[in-house]
């Protein structure tokens, strides 16, 4: 049966309606998606491991359930992809890194099991920056699968480290994907690829079976076409897990019917982000997007970020924790097999980090958390951009020195990505237009466990715009 191209870009509720009305079968849908993933995934270096036979078997089970009206929720029968730092039993889980190319676990990550239990169909593992880029990296090529190319322009990078997750959603290779973020790894690729990404509150989603990079920073979250899709996926993957010591023991129920009216929501922002920090060719898109939010009734008020050295704080915490996680790799010399020289050096140096730096950073982190509590007593969420502009060129050196020294004090919400990750805050990325031919996005960050409020604003924005429906050319 020929499948319409529109199916590959359909939302979860749209596909759910078609599946439950038996307008398409789970097997047909899975065959179509797996064929597309295998055909186009390599075009973007987005595919780490196809799981087609397993997906078809699962789809056959799901199809029987659906025909017998054993309905398990909106994700049943819908294909998805998982970043290759999530274990899938008896198949390679490479963490995007050569030293782990042959690594096989005999159990599934909790998120994989949770999605399996609601009938979701895992069609493949998706490419990532090696070891999620913890040691730092200079080039997009810091990956076992090569540089992940942006579906909007293959001369550009998809962003990292959840590169394949964002690229696969953007190209319609999966309906949604699971990514991870330690600091920016969902926000950046979602922004660059023009898709919707949700970084959940720290502890909301179990990381059991996921590569550890930084125990106190790592989070797993969905990348999808819409905010609503992200909410539906988060509902399925959130929840207490005794196998994750960082688990908050909380569930998440996506409840748009109980969302506060958006005209009651106060949003803090820094106008300078959009008028000066943003790339010049992105400013018009951001200005239009701000107008949409204002027209929707959101109260935008000028706010300042608490002033902390977020970058050095995050750097110290990440370095200390990753050096402990990967101590054997570093001391054995296996680290030298990594693709990126900056990554290798970063990990080697990290193992020498003085304990006092880690402790000081963790104590400053406590103070920053307290300051963010004060911020969220004044506003419901913070608004800035996902990235300053469109995707970077794929060969761009991320450590290219700036022509002028940075300002002594941060401007606008500079540092919100490490700040939000240090404070464990949820963030939602919403495509909001283009800089030239490349997508740009807004970023909303809220108080811990405010995902439903963020998603309500996301839904309101996406009900008034169609940026999330745009498709890359030629896919």
């Amino acid at each position: 049966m020929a499948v319409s191209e529109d199916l590959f870009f359909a939302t979860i509720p749209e596909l759910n309606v078609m599946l439950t009305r038996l307008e398409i079968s789970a097997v047909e849908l899975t065959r179509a998606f797996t064929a597309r993933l295998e055909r186009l995934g390599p075009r973007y270096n987005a595919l780490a491991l196809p799981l087609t036979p397993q997906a078809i078997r699962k789809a056959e089970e799901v199809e029987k359930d659906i025909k017998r009206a054993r309905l398990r929720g909106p994700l049943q029968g819908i294909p998805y992809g998982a970043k290759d730092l999530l274990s899938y039993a008896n198949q390679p889980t490479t963490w995007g890194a050569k030293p782990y190319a042959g690594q096989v676990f005999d159990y599934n990550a909790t998120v994989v099991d949770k999605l399996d239990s609601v009938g979701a169909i895992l069609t493949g593992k998706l490419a990532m920056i090696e070891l999620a880029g913890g040691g730092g990296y200079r080039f997009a090529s810091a990956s076992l699968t090569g540089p992940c190319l942006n579906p909007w322009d293959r001369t550009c990078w998809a962003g990292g480290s959840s590169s394949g997750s964002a690229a696969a959603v953007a190209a319609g290779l999966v309906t949604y994907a699971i990514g991870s973020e330690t600091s920016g790894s969902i926000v950046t690729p979602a922004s660059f690829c023009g898709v919707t990404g949700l970084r959940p509150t720290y502890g909301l989603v179990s990381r059991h079976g996921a590569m550890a990079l930084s125990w106190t920073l790592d989070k797993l979250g969905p990348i999808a076409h819409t905010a609503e899709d992200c909410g539906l996926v988060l509902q399925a993957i959130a929840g207490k897990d005794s196998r994750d010591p960082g688990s908050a023991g909380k569930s998440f129920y996506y409840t748009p019917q109980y969302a506060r009216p958006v005209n009651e929501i106060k949003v803090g922002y820094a106008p300078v982000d959009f008028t000066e920090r943003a790339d010049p060719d992105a400013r018009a898109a951001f200005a239009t997007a701000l107008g949409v939010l204002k027209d929707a009734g959101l109260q935008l008020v000028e706010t300042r970020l608490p002033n902390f050295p977020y970058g050095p704080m995050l750097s110290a915490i990440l370095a200390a924790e990753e050096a402990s996680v990967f101590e054997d790799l570093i001391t054995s010399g296996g680290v030298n097999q990594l693709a990126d020289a900056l990554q290798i050096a970063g990990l080697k140096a990290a193992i020498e980090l003085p304990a006092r730096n880690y402790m000081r950073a963790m104590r400053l982190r406590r103070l920053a958390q307290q300051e963010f509590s004060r911020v969220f007593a004044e506003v419901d969420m913070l608004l800035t951009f996902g990235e300053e502009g469109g995707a970077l060129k794929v060969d761009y050196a991320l450590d290219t020195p700036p022509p002028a020294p940075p300002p002594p004090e941060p401007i606008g919400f500079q540092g919100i990505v490490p700040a939000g990750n240090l404070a464990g805050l949820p963030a939602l990325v919403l495509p909001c237009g283009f800089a030239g031919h490349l997508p740009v996005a807004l970023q909303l960050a809220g108080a811990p466990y405010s995902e439903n409020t963020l998603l309500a604003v996301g839904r309101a924005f996406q009900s008034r715009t169609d940026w999330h429906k745009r498709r890359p050319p030629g896919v």
Partner: protein
Amino acid sequence: MKITRRKLAAAVAASVTAPLLAQAPAPRTPDQELQAARDRMKSNGDKLAAQSVPMSTEPAFQFRA
């Protein structure tokens, strides 16, 4: 002051790398790379040390018995 992403790439790069990146020209030999990484770590440590932290502030991790 107009600051764009390209100008501040080292400070606002796309990932966890951001705080680790240098403002100096990229070195190329492994020894130079390692020394540069150590220098960045030292510089970050100096920035942390410049912050005052009340003695009563506990670090932001939890242990549950």
